[in-house]
């Protein structure tokens, strides 16, 4: 049995603070509160919508201008940082010679897999992606705080739709979170699955003999699997060894989970199973997103995960109609050209997706943690690799950060790196700089991420 770990102790001391008589608690200064919060696990979330927005309408020039599609975010401006003009262009369809990279198509096909990895992708039959920033941060915090998983990864269930996608591996459309070059993190696609993963299984504790017994059984199964894997491995060719090693990584991750000593956060509520919604049904899509956001919020509140990652849709939105009351296919609408009717439809779709992020911020803001709104303890990123849906070339990412003030993030500002349409290759500041900055907030200790050339300082 592992000794009680550091995180269990921290959570325990946090409970003590909560348990102070009301009067004493009231005398705790903001600074003391911030200090208490600083011993908590830093948490991060990454949320994604597909296809970009109308021109640069997701990139405000000042925080007083949260209007149009950004209007739903206006009540939270003091928590927000708009990050404009960063480029993920190296990873979009056209390289410096003007040709498609690795035989891949437009950013629709590659956006999901490039967004948080900032990596060039291998072509058909040759999956090649860098680890994504959510996993890098999540794995580092998992090691430090012994959480069950590195990240809760969620994606709407249209991951496999679509016909005639040419040579592009569907994984690039649908998977945003990558542990290593070839190993993705599969999104949970249903409400039930997320609930079960996060809340329905009681964690093993040293005091519950039944749970200890189950833990020992699982350990024996894991040991047997490790021995079977190593005997099979010797008979395989190198490509098959890579496949088997992915299984091995999974077995090791389950081992970590089995050995984790789970302690809940200071304000963890009892959770009952929510209603399941089908994201493929346009009438249920909004309820699906809201319910997932509720589950993410509670998972953070209970300190179960260091990172949440939620793709509202797959890379090009899937064959999805009815978003924001617009009956048309959302991807088709994103090619608005000079069609003002289409632009208005896309604005409605964009507004819908921003209102979903606003709902998340509302939940984080309403949830109190050590007398502070939880939003201040969590750094959240929302956006996509493209700014102009019509161009969708990745040269201006649409990014909004929220919260994290207790992690040192300075909010209520715009970080502007120059919104210039269709930047020449290699001239924009890399999006990877922002991710490197976020990893600094997490205290990961990276010096470089993908094609970064300097970290963006979010703390000053």
């Amino acid at each position, binding site marked *: 049995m592992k000794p009680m770990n550091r995180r269990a102790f921290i959570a325990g001391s946090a409970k003590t603070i909560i348990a102070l008589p009301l009067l004493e608690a009231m005398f705790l200064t903001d600074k003391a509160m911030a200090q208490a919060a600083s011993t908590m696990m830093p948490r991060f979330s990454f949320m994604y919508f597909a296809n970009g927005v109308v021109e640069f309408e997701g990139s405000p020039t000042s925080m007083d201008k949260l209007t149009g599609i950004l209007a739903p975010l206006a009540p939270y401006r003091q928590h927000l940082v708009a990050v404009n003009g960063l480029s993920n262009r190296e990873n979009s369809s056209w390289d410096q010679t*003007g040709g*498609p990279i690795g*035989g891949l*198509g*437009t950013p629709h*096909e590659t956006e999901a897999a490039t967004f948080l990895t900032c990596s060039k992708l291998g072509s058909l*039959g040759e999956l090649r992606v860098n680890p994504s920033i959510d996993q890098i941060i999540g794995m580092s915090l998992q090691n430090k705080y012994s959480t069950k*998983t590195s990240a809760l990864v969620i994606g709407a269930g249209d991951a*496999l*739709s*679509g*016909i*005639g996608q*040419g040579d592009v591996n*569907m*994984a690039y459309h649908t998977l945003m979170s990558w*542990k290593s070059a*070839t*190993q*993705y*993190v*599969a999104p*949970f*696609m249903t409400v*039930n*699955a997320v609930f079960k993963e996060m809340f329905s299984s009681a964690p093993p504790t040293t005091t519950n003999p039944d749970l200890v*017994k189950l833990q020992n*059984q*699982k350990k*024996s*199964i*894991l040991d*047997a699997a490790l*021995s079977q*894997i190593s*005997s*099979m491995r010797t*008979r*395989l*060719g*190198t*490509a*098959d060894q890579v*496949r*088997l090693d992915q*299984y091995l*990584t*999974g077995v090791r*991750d*389950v081992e970590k*989970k089995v050995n984790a000593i789970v302690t809940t956060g200071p304000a963890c509520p009892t959770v009952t199973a929510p209603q399941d919604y089908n994201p493929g049904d*346009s009438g249920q899509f909004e309820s699906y997103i809201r319910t997932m956001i509720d589950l993410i919020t509670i998972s953070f509140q209970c300190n179960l995960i260091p990172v949440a990652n939620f793709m509202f849709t797959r890379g090009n939105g899937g*064959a999805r*109609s*009815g978003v924001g009351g617009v*009956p*048309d*296919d959302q991807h*088709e609408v994103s090619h608005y*050209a000079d069609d003002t009717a289409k632009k208005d439809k896309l604005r409605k779709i964009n507004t819908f997706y921003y209102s979903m992020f606003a709902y998340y911020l509302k939940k984080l803001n309403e949830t109190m943690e050590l007398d502070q709104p939880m939003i201040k303890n969590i750094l959240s990123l929302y956006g996509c690799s493209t700014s102009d849906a019509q161009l969708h070339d990745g040269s201006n990412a649409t990014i909004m950060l929220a919260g994290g003030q207790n992690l040192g993030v300075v909010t209520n500002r715009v970080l502007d790196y120059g919104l210039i349409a269709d930047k020449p290759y290699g001239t924009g500041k890399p999006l990877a700089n922002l991710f490197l900055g976020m990893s600094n907030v997490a205290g990961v200790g990276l010096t470089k991420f993908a094609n970064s050339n300097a970290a963006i300082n979010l703390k000053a």
Partner: protein
Amino acid sequence: MYRLLRLFKSKLRILSIFVGALGLTFLFMNCGRIGGFALKDVTGTSDQGSSAINPPLPPVDQKLCTTTSVPGRVGLQRLTSRQMENTLRDLLGITVTLPTTFSRDDQMGGYVSLPETQLMSSQFVDMQMDFIFDLADKVVTQAPAVVISCAYANSATCVDKIISDFLVRAYRRPLRTDEKTSFVTQYNNFSGTAQEKMKVVIASILFSPQFLYREITNPPPGSSNYLALSSYELANRLSYFAWETMPDAQLFAKAQSGDLSKPEVLTAELQRMMQSPRIEALARSLAEQWFGYGSIWTHSLNSTTFPNFNTAMKQSMYNESVQFIKYLIQQNRPVSDIAIADYSFVDSNLATLYGLSLPANSPLTFTNIVNTKHQGILGHPGILALTSSGEKTSIVRRGLWANEKLLCTTFGAPPAGASTQLPTNLPADATPREVMEAHRANPSCAACHNYIDPPGMVLESFDPLGRIRTTYSTGRTIDTSAKLANGVSFLDTKDLNAYLSKDKNFSECVTKKIMPVIVGRVAKFEDTCSVKTIAEGKLPTDITFRQLFENMIKSMVFTMQAGE
């Protein structure tokens, strides 16, 4: 060679995967039956043995070949979610339902059992652990006789028997040295009740990669060597494509005796399996993986315009194509029926789309399709709905579908600098055909769209639900005439279907399309000669769909494994 082909492709951006006219020397001769190997002692602890390096290859038809055929290589295939569910059912003798959250299969071009696309995630392993753990609990509690064959609580002999019998069936092959011993040791060393010990061992076996993956013996790496599949490997390959599950008792027996390595025995086993109702599993695989039905459950159309495109309708559409394929196989119908069948399977949901009248709640039944436009797979409403989006049909999606699925013509991404947006300066009532004509005015677009669009234009005679229409909502008449890039002209779908039914390439294309489902890899340039041999150089009217399967399992594509 393949590299050369890729280069060719990237330059021209369009081609059939097979170019049969590169005039390469044909090396392998027509020489006798396949090799084979099987262990007599299934439960013995001896090694799997190894077959002779480079055994004689199955015959190819040299008259059809201008290129060399060499054995290909299939990587480590993981059981798909359906294969796992079926295998566990047959292995454990209890009802098994995978959690819905678990059934995610990675796919490439619709195919789900290609090792290259079967990525593995920690979540999968995690869910697998929870699922297997609960399942093993069920097994020791319910104690089905097929697994718990004796009272093991106080009998080391019985423990030994249960473990070794179960291992052979779970690993689906003779055991290797130490495999049984390691699990017997685990049983003995685990501290708990006999039932807990057994649960841990059963769960461990099901959690092992030997259960989850289908391993094929590899020749030594680094050369052009190849091996014949062992009779057990043949049994597994056969069983997993035909029934999507582990081999049954008879197939295991033929593997154990080694008879399965004889082509006539292998063929007889396939014929037996094809006559069984369980062959529906193959029909489902083909509908999902070849025709693209795997994505119909998440496909949506504008719900205001098409409120009846609901789950019940999707189910009817899916069932229609599945029953159609099953019928082709079981009734030994010619390949041409895929294009020109004057029958299908219609229920009351589909009747409304076919313009037929059936009483409410009529189940799916064999139905003559009199309207020639609606005949063949291109008339199936499910296909026509899958290739539409929002409230509209799409010439491009339908054209791509027909090209990729029936003509085996694939396209790369649009060329650099090409505008993927359709012209917007046309009159408001411009037809989709006129929009595409304007798009093709740009030569860089026309290079591919001259191929993509014609079948799509022909299929404009169907609305997004597959109902026949003659005008658009603007009132404009639909012109369904089109000319393929090779100069062949059509007036409507009847002509297109007739063309396919008389095209020798169609027999070969169907062969290529079924190959990934059967062997777990995509046909490559090196398989050209094998594919031609399987299709026998015959017109689609002159060879049956079932014959393609029988020919394929006797070919080197099925029976041989190359080194890395």
